[in-house]
């Protein structure tokens, strides 16, 4: 730990703790999940940087959406995202959450994930290599440092719009709104 880090730790301990303790929800949303086990195991060992998978969304603060999102999965993803405690960060993994990727004309996968839930960053590629996950994590660190990883704030702010988009593709959602006031906007 160099001196710069130490100063940062003293100035903003909470922020630094969020940076170095990214616990990811283990949710195999698509084929990107195949590169997660190498990342968290012996070859790349993401635990060096505090990134580990957890079993329940309540413990997590990082949501890696690994690959295409079908409609049935979208429902589960929104549930999971809403269960995570704030502050929480979400990263889209692979081309498919960005714009549908090679499933651009599939009737059952959604195309722009950021219209249904906030995304703090994307990792492009099909499949992105494990190194790309590390690059993404360092980018996320920078974003957290600069208070730019504010997806959860956006979710609160534009909740009415997000909820409307979710209901447009999924039909009526069976759970009550997370923010009953409908957000600020």
């Amino acid at each position: 730990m160099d001196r710069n880090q130490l100063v940062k730790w003293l100035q903003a301990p909470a922020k630094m703790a969020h940076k170095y303790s990214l616990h990811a929800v283990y949710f195999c949303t698509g084929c990107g999940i195949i590169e997660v086990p190498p990342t968290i195991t012996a070859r790349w060992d993401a635990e060096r940087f505090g990134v580990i998978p957890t079993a329940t969304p309540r413990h997590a603060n990082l949501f890696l959406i690994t690959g295409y999102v079908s409609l049935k999965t979208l429902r589960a993803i929104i549930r999971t995202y809403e269960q995570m405690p704030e502050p929480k960060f979400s990263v889209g993994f692979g081309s498919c959450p960005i714009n549908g990727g090679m499933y651009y004309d599939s009737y059952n996968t959604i195309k722009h994930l950021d219209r249904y839930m906030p995304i703090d960053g994307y990792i492009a590629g099909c499949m992105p290599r494990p190194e790309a996950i590390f690059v993404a994590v360092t980018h996320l660190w920078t974003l957290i440092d600069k208070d730019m990883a504010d997806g959860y704030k956006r979710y609160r702010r534009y909740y009415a719009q997000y909820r409307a988009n979710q209901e447009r593709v999924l039909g009526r959602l069976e759970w009550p709104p997370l923010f009953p006031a409908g957000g600020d906007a």
Partner: protein
Amino acid sequence: MRILGFVISPLAALAVGIFFLGLTRRFMARTQWRYGPPLYQPLIDMLRFFTQKSVSHGAIFDLGVILSLAGSLVVVLFLPFGRICPLQGSGGLLVVLYLMLLAPLGLALSAGEAANPNSSIGISRMFALALGYEVPLLLIVLAAMTRYDTISIVEIVAAQRAAVPNLATFPLVLSGIAYLLILPALLGLRPFDVAQAPQEISSGPLAELGGRYLALAQIQNALSLFIGISLFVNLMWGGASNPLVFFLKMLVVFAFGLWISASFPRLRVEQAVRYLWRWPTLLAFVGLLLVVVIRR
């Protein structure tokens, strides 16, 4: 001095417990051919949990978590750490055994309030496992109490330090081995981590705990590591005259636990209970029997 003990003892226990948590992750990482996180990683995690938004599921939920932590904290006060032991005069082993049950009870309360099916399964597994290790643990503790004719832990430690190893201490070796056999179950380590089993029931009782509550549960976990090991060192390995030696002894015991933990997959709960009721119970029973016979 005694007042100071009330502060130092829990802090020392906490420090040791959290160090053990970090050590677990580091040790596991090395057996798995990786570097692993820094030793202070549990501290970072706890800091994050504390600063995250926590969702409460009601008053009982809060109370349960606090109860389990408080129970463990009080137990720590009864356990000599080297010479530091704030509550040496009162209670002793029986109170410790009693209070050790508070921790799972508190978690059960909060899990019941959270109404997550995984938590409920975890709790029932936790109590089944407790049922498994309480029997040999009681026999072991009884053996120690009968041998030294006291229920005070401090006096047991003193008696062990005074006595020269002879034939009369042999039965306690059996009890000691029995204790080592149930140690992973007591600490909730791998072959017996049925209650949390992330792959089966999503962390069980902890499934609904988030933010602050999870941090408190982690602290409780650290303390329970301390309690399980220090009880062994005090009862079976003669304690220590200063905290450093005591810590080193604990480290050796914990390393043994980790070694077991790294080399076995998880048992099912009924298999775990069957195991606990077979060999450790048998050994502990024989130990107790011999202690009684030799005393006659």
